[in-house]
């Protein structure tokens, strides 16, 4: 394709289609390398379970389909846009009105393509609806709250009930069947490396299942805007060996060993701190208890459903997946949770924060004792 040197046309940034393609490729490569991180905590490009795997496969195929269509159509567009530029003195071009045969063809082919994709989508959709027949999934009820996740195991193992929060411990290679629900606004449960998301809608019990094929710590986050701290409503699924899982279940709720300081902390927890109003630390929560807390909140009382802390010291993070569970961080949190997660209900409702500067109405040693207690909850 010749370009006359004297011709200065408005596409002068593009010297030729070849340059355009090179520059375009360079751009895409730079972009991809900027974004590439092999350790993407929430990436959908790595899957560790059958549901995420087939969803990932669908997307991989889609990328190819989109890329091919993109290159083809954009190429034809750019080719036509450049080749049919007006040349000075050229006559009026042929006044073509259309080409019915061509138009019918390019209507039918895309129809077949999208219907094909649609059929495959449906097949996968029905395939991932339920865990494989005959498997005995671990059943869990996950409840969304502003801004943390409650996990209830009606039967974690051997008939034992467990309530925990923000970190979902499961055994590897066993399907997990969740019922998703909410006690306030709509949230969404999303652990990308294990499965796509489903919403947690008040009035509904939405099913979601997945399985972890490898031990690991799988990051998740709420994926439906749910108010002030939607951005800091995270959680994780921790897939462990069968033995480790059973050991955790057995140890849950057993009276923890408490040092002297931790016992003092327990007294603050149950007494001056009034933590026990919203947080249980001695075993699973009954549905009635949580409902009472929720109803109290709705009626304007200084109470809300708070994360169950019984096994807090077995979790990697706290405050809904935001902070590592170090004593330093726990101390900062208890001192003034508003600094770490502004607008959270613990700060808004708990009596100990009704101070002038918002700092907890507890002495430093009381707070340290509380932290010692919390760090003993295994």
């Amino acid at each position, binding site marked *: 394709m010749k370009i006359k040197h004297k011709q200065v046309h408005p596409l002068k940034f593009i010297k030729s289609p070849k340059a355009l393609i090179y520059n375009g490729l360079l751009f895409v490569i730079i972009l991809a390398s900027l974004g590439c991180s092999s350790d993407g905590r929430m990436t959908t490009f790595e899957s560790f379970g059958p549901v995420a795997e087939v969803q990932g496969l669908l*997307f991989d195929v889609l990328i190819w389909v989109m890329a091919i269509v993109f290159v083809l159509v954009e190429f034809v567009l750019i080719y036509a846009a450049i080749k049919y530029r007006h040349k000075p003195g050229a006559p009026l071009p042929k006044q073509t009105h259309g080409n019915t045969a061509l138009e019918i063809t390019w209507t039918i082919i895309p129809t077949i393509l999208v219907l094909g994709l649609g059929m495959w989508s449906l097949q996968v959709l029905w395939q991932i609806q339920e865990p494989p027949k005959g498997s005995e999934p671990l059943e869990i009820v996950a409840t969304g709250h502003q801004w943390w996740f409650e996990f209830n195991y009606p039967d974690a193992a051997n008939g034992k009930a467990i309530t925990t929060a923000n970190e979902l411990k499961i055994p590897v290679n066993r399907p997990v069947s969740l019922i998703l629900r909410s006690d306030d606004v709509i949230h969404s449960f999303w652990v990308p490396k294990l499965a796509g998301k489903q919403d947690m809608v008040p009035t509904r019990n939405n099913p979601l299942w997945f399985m972890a094929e490898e031990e690991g710590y799988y990051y998740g986050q709420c994926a439906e805007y749910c108010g002030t701290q939607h951005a800091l409503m995270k959680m994780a699924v921790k897939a462990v060996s069968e033995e480790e899982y059973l050991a955790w279940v057995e140890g849950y709720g057993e009276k923890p060993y408490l040092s002297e300081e931790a016992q003092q902390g327990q007294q603050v927890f149950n007494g001056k701190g009034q933590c026990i109003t919203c947080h249980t630390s001695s075993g699973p929560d009954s549905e009635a208890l949580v409902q009472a807390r929720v109803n109290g909140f709705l009626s304007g009382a200084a109470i809300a459903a708070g994360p169950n802390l019984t096994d807090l010291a077995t979790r990697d993070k706290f405050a809904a997946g935001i902070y590592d569970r170090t004593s330093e961080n726990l101390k900062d949190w208890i001192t003034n949770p508003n600094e770490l997660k502004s607008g959270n209900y613990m700060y808004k409702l708990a009596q100990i924060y009704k101070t002038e500067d918002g700092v907890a109405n507890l002495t430093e040693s009381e707070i340290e004792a509380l932290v010692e207690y919390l760090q003993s909850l295994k």
Partner: protein
Amino acid sequence: MATVASKQSQNSMLSNIWGWITTVDHKRIGILYGVTAFVMFLVAGIEAGIMRWQLSMPGLDVVSPDVYNQMFTMHGTTMVFFAIMPLNAAFFNYIIPLAIGARDVAFPRLNAFSYWTFLAAVLFMNFGFVVGAVPDGGWFAYAPLSEQPYSTNQGMEFWSIGLMLAAVSSAVAGLNFIVTIVNLRAPGMSLMRMPVFIWMSFVVQILLAFAIPVIAVGLIELTMDRLFGTVFFKPSAGGDPILWQHLFWIFGHPEVYILILPPMGIISDVLPAFSKKPLFGYPFIVFSGIAIGLMGWAVWSHHMFTVGLGPIAVSVFTITTMLIAVPTGVKIFNWIGTLWGGSIEYKTPMLFAVGFIAMFIIGGLSGVSHAVAPSDYQQQDTYYIIAHIHYVLFGGAILGIFSGIYFWFPKVTGKLLNEKLGKYHFWITFVGMNLTFFPMHYLGMNGMPRRIYTYATEYGWDNLNALSSFGYVILFIAMVIFIVNVITSLKSGEDAGHDPWNAPGLEWTIASPPPVYNFSDLPVVEGRDPYWIIKRRAIAEGKELPGPQALVDPSTVHLPDPSYWPAFTSLGLLIFATGFMIEIPVWFVKYPIAIVGGLLVFVGILAWSNEPITREKNH
């Protein structure tokens, strides 16, 4: 002497303002819509800028979480309802009567009322900023978050009632334009001879007429929940939050076609003008527009794939959504067919039109990927969706709108916009847009949810967020160039003449700017692209190209008189709406100001109905 002169100019400035308030001229109303909408576009752009600043690095504290949540709510709401819809309306108002060879729309006072009610909506909703109660429920305001006790200040009432005002404005305008297009076309302009912009607008007005009542119902129910203790969407009392979603999206999906079809119509008229050949496959483009309008009603729950509707519902909507890709995609091929074999002049309107096609291909393709429901379970509520939205709305609608602005600015003002600045505007916008939004595809599939005010560095999202925020700066620069172009061209732009582009539509047969009565001689339409037919016949017969239609004395032309009742009625509506924000215990009446506003509306409509169309008794 000086005082007399200044009093005169004061008088004339006041009478000038009064002239605009009482105008029923579709051209003036179009300009009012366009200017107001563009200002709101810039406002929403600033809201976006605050968000991009906050997200440019992990863990920033530029704004608090609450303010960030207000920003994305207002950015989305403003862009959809107060920028793109009214920018489209600016074109409906200005161009439709001209392109069909009419004097004005069917109901000129109703037309004015649409604008003033739209302005009332803009002022009402943004008043939240003044009193510190800014809507923060997201632009689709899902319940129960939008309800008490989760949304405690009046922000969501500013939102729901403000949108109701906008809904009234659009619904009424929709009916107006349906009647106009059906009844007021010039002789010879059959439906299949109408410019594609008129066709797309026609489909959109019908969509509006049916979709707006649905959102109106939802908004009324939400407002009643918040103000009058009803429980439509309150789970604690047996209400259903999913009902809100259905009502919103049954409106919301046709709404996105309401947003995109007019710009598609615009470029369908720009491409032939600058390719110097007719639109390729006019009937296919018209029928695919109609098909999109019809099929758009059958896809709404693809916005709700993750809500738990069950596999049967999800399956149905997967297939319908896949199918609607066909009429959309087919248009792209027809547009390329228009370029093919043409003799393309790349004036700025044409750059934006071709840019539209290039960007809409990307937005359309990502849209197809959303239709694959199991994959959408990963994509939904992430930045991948935000990438799609902005490719179709910015790369699509906004680029198409700019194409229309550059195309018709000479007709409206009599001046040409500067070509060099226009080209800079286009290319810098093009680069900026892609820098801002392309990385979001990857961010989304790398796990970044939407509507989060911050993120941690450990998630690997830092670089692409920084790149995206840099892209915003580029877009900002492009917008400044555009504004400079408009201002300087208005002042000292080149004279446009009546037909600067050698275009085929009837609007180019009259002077620029058009006289108040538009056409002195009723045009007779001999086919599609009517002005080309006339011009090419002149060339073939060796005659001179026709000039603009000769001007006549405006007082000899039958035109509707200006009226203040439309603005008065809109003001009444504004007072009515405001009344619900102020609770005053007056005996047993909670909202006395609303009652006053309602009475004003009633008086306004009564007076309007009894006002003669013109005051002249003789003609």
